[in-house]
C-alpha cells in the first residue's frame, strides 16, 4: 500500500516535468510569421548587428537557424 502511494505520488510529481502541450504542425501559423524569423523583419539590421558583434568580439557566426515553421521537410 505504501509503495503504491509513493508510486502514485511520484507519478504525479513527474507529470509536471512533461511538456504540457506539444505544438502540432497545424498550430505553427504564428511561428511561420515573418516577425518570427531569427534575425527579425529586416535583414539589414541583422547585418549591422552582426558587424557590431564582429567588431566587439572579434568573432562571427553561430547566429542563424535553418528551416521555416510549417514542419515541412
Amino acid at each position: 500500500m505504501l509503495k503504491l502511494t509513493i508510486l502514485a505520488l511520484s507519478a504525479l510529481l513527474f507529470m509536471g516535468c512533461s511538456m504540457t502541450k506539444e505544438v502540432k504542425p497545424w498550430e505553427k501559423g504564428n511561428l511561420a510569421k515573418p516577425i518570427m524569423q531569427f534575425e527579425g523583419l529586416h535583414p539589414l539590421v541583422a547585418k549591422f548587428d552582426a558587424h557590431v558583434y564582429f567588431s566587439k568580439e572579434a568573432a562571427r557566426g553561430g547566429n542563424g537557424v535553418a528551416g521555416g515553421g510549417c514542419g515541412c521537410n
Partner: protein
Amino acid sequence: MFKKTLSALLFSSLTLMALETGETIPKDIQTQLNMEEDKVYVLNFFASWCKACKKELALVNKVHNEKITNIIGINVDKKKEEGEAFVQELELQFPVIYDEEKALVETFSPIGFPAVYYVKNNKVLHTIFGAVDNIDEQIASDIKEIK
C-alpha cells in the same frame, strides 16, 4: 483502486494516434468528408501561412482540372476568412473544407505540412508529408499504381 488511479495517471498524457496507411477513417469524419465508394480521393491539408502549401496547391489544382483524381482540400487556418481569402487568391477549383474545429486535422494528425492522403473506401492507402517538387506528377503516378 490505487492501481487504476496509477494507470490513469500514466496514460493521461497519451494523445490520439495519427491515422496511418491501411487504417480506416472514423465514422464521424467519413460523414464530414462524404466520399463516394470505390473512388480514389486525395485529401490535401494546407494552411495559408505554409509557403510550401502555396507552391504545391497550384499543381494540385492542375491535377483536379485534368480530372486525374478527386481532390478534397482541407484548410486548417485558425480563421475561416483567412482560408477563404487564400483559396480565392490561388483560384482553387476543387472543394475545400474549412476545418475550424480541427476535428479533421486532429484525427489525421499529419506530421508536417502540406499533407497528402490517398483514400479509397474510407481507407488510407498512402501518405505524403512535406513539400514535394512536381506533386502533380507524383499524384498522377501514384493514382496509376493504386488503380
